[in-house]
């Protein structure tokens, strides 16, 4: 604890700090591009950069196991899943003029206000707090595994049930209802009311015939 309580200047950059800061800037920039780009597929790709950057940050914080899990699950599967989703919903390739809704300015206001408040609070609270990164890694696979299977084994097992439930739920949701082509169940209320929704509801029928293989693939 003597090291942790030792005085450090507010601006006394170590090598780790500089690396953290640079990677952090890249990560934040990639995140900004992700939420602002007009090209939908690019957004997914910039998300890969963001998530990868975060994995590097975990490494810098000596949480190596989390970092590899991040790379495996997020970069490896979640982003791929999102790309599949973009394809299946026929997201336009190239610049789409209406990627952002008219809520943009309200969203910006809220986000900036929230960021200002949070940064202010966090800096105010932790500006003199120091993390000691020397010694054995806090997030090594050994340490994490021991903690997980000693202290967290019951939630871990419960989580497996949750994953199973999510799996079943996803299958049920993406399965096509049997009589859907004759009467779309979710749209039945709107179809009686306006011609616009009637044209909408007539669309998915050829749509679903075009790419059954892709639909099957997602299941």
């Amino acid at each position, binding site marked *: 604890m003597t090291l942790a309580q030792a005085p450090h200047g507010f601006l006394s950059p170590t090598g780790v700090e500089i690396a953290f800061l640079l990677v952090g800037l890249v990560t934040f920039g990639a995140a900004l591009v992700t939420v602002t780009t007009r090209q939908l597929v690019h957004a997914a790709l910039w998300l890969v950069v963001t998530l990868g950057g975060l994995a590097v940050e975990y490494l810098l914080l000596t949480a190596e196991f989390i970092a590899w899990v991040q790379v495996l699950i997020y970069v490896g599967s979640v982003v791929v899943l999102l790309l599949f989703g973009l394809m299946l919903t026929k997201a336009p390739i190239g610049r789409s003029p209406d990627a952002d*809704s008219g809520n943009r300015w309200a969203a910006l206001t809220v986000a900036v206000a929230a960021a200002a408040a949070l940064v202010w609070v966090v800096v105010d609270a932790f500006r003199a707090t120091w993390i000691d990164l020397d010694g054995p890694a806090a997030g090594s696979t050994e340490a994490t595994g021991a903690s997980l299977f000693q202290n967290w084994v019951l939630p871990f097992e419960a989580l497996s049930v949750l994953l199973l439930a999510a799996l079943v739920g996803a299958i049920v949701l993406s399965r096509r209802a049997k009589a859907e082509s004759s009467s779309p169940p979710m749209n039945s209320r709107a179809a009686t009311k306006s011609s616009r929704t009637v044209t909408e509801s007539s669309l998915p029928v050829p749509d679903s015939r075009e790419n059954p293989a892709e639909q099957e693939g997602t299941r």
Partner: protein
Amino acid sequence: MTTTTLAVLVPLLPFLGAAAGLLLGHTAPGFVRPLAVLPTLAALVLAAIVAVRQGGDATVTAATELTPTGSVPIELALYIDGFAALVAVLVGLVATCVQIYSTGYLREDPRYPSYAALVSLFTSAMFLVVYSGDLIVLLVGWEVMGICSYFLVGHYWETPEARAASLKAFLVTKLGDVPFLIGLFALATDAGSFRITRVLATVAHGGLDHPTLVALLLLAGVAGKSAQFPLHTWLPDAMAGPTPVSALIHAATMVAAGVYFIARLLPVFEASSAAMVTLAVMAAVTMVGSGLAALAQDDIKRVLAYSTIGQLGYMTGALAVGDRGAAVFHLLSHGAFKALLFLAAGVIIHASGTNSLAAMSRMSHLRDRIPDAYWTMTVALLALAAIPPFSGFFSKESVLGAAEHITAGHTEHAPGATGWIVLVAGLLTALLTAAYATRLWLLAFHGRGTEAPDHGRQPRTMTVVLWVLAVPSLALGGLAYRSLPDWFDGNDLAPTLTTSVLGTGVALAGGLVTYAAWRHLTGLAARVPLGAVAAHPEGDAGLVEAEAIATHAPAYGDTASAPDPADPGRLLLGPLHRHAAVGFHLDAVYRALFVRPVQAGASLVRFLDREVVDTYVQGAGALPRLLGAAVRRAQTGNLQTYVSALLAGTVVLAVAALLVASGA
């Protein structure tokens, strides 16, 4: 059983019969007739036993307080003196006759079960009024009679006349009942009790603070119930009900209640000479006016209705001169012969198929078709005209005798002026009574023209009761006038020579003048064809009567009179006839004075409600509606907008919480 128990059973039995009849009427039609007749008959027997046991001696009183009821206690009390005992017997007799008669009269009526139950309830309420020793309990019976009369008069509610008549009867009697209730409260406040015995004791000690006010307030209720001027107008219209109901209302129950009530509380009225004079004037106007009106009526039942008003005038006249014995004596004999008159009139209407005297006068041999009705009605009309030795003579002479007694000045109860008023009006009415009785008899039974239709014999239930009632009409007065004073106050009821000669003389004169007029006009009747008869002569009597009432106005232009030049009443009354036929325009006066202002007020209130009040209400609704429209615009359905607002609020709250926490 003790006399008290028997007396309690008397009102209770018809009440239970009525309840059972209402409950079982549609599920067990076989029980309806026994349930209608037997409880009333049992009540009659019990009332007779009570009367024998009471014997005119000591008053039977009993009281029990069920529960405390505030400052002035209300008790279930019995108070049976000679008046109560005898009137109860009369009520039981008439009600039994009416119930038996109704089984024949309304034998095909689909609403007979409810009708019979209501008649039983009516009877029970009258028994309650008669026996009750507590004014509030009496009021209960009084009001139950009001509502029963509403339902019974409106029995033929398919016809607009019946609906209007029932409503009128209810409203007019209620108009009197409001001051009546206030008067009862004032009386009880002075006396500290609703018990009749205590009230009378208070009056005897002069403890009444406002005797005139109380007496006049009570008088309003009595005038409404007993159909005295100026609240009598409901009674002729109430003829729209079935004939047995008319008999019940007119003879023994409803109209008798008012007279009986004054007889019970006569000392209260005697405490105020103004009330006695008012009573006398009321009686005199009622008597003479109703006599004139009766002479002009064409509907046989309306003639009888006006005659009831007139005979009730005799009773109130007797009360105005402070002789309640004479009043109740006349009530008893009048109950008998008036019930008989109405029931016989029902038979006549059924046999002739019309209720119009003008039509009957163009019908020959009616008396051969219905000999029972002819003979009994003759007896009853002689009693009504007060010809000796029929019972009406003795009771009417007792009234006139009492009035004459007052005019002599030796009395402490009533002012001498009342005696003169009652005596002169009574003699004049005797003349008129004899005149319209003769006219009724001649027109109904001595018509000339086409032969009356033959519908076969009348039902035995309807004819037997006529003979039962003919006995007291014939003999009650002569047999009872000596013994009745023992039951009553002890005043002598025997006819005095002067009034007997005078009364009988004017009655004979009236009858003879009418006969002469009728003879004079008899040729004219044949030349003026007139009349209409019922469309379903083979139906039961109730149906025939309903049709006769419904067709009277279309056929003759009016419900009350007919344009018959051969009517002796038209000749006798001369220019008065036109006014007498419509009851001296009293209805028109009421219409102008009360109905029109009320209607105008109602339309004014309607206007205010629609145009003024509603404007404010709608104005109050407009602002919330505008706000609602504004708020609705925010509900776009865009989830991102919602979440933006939610998070913006969260940020604001968080910053506020931080600022407060950091003490800024």
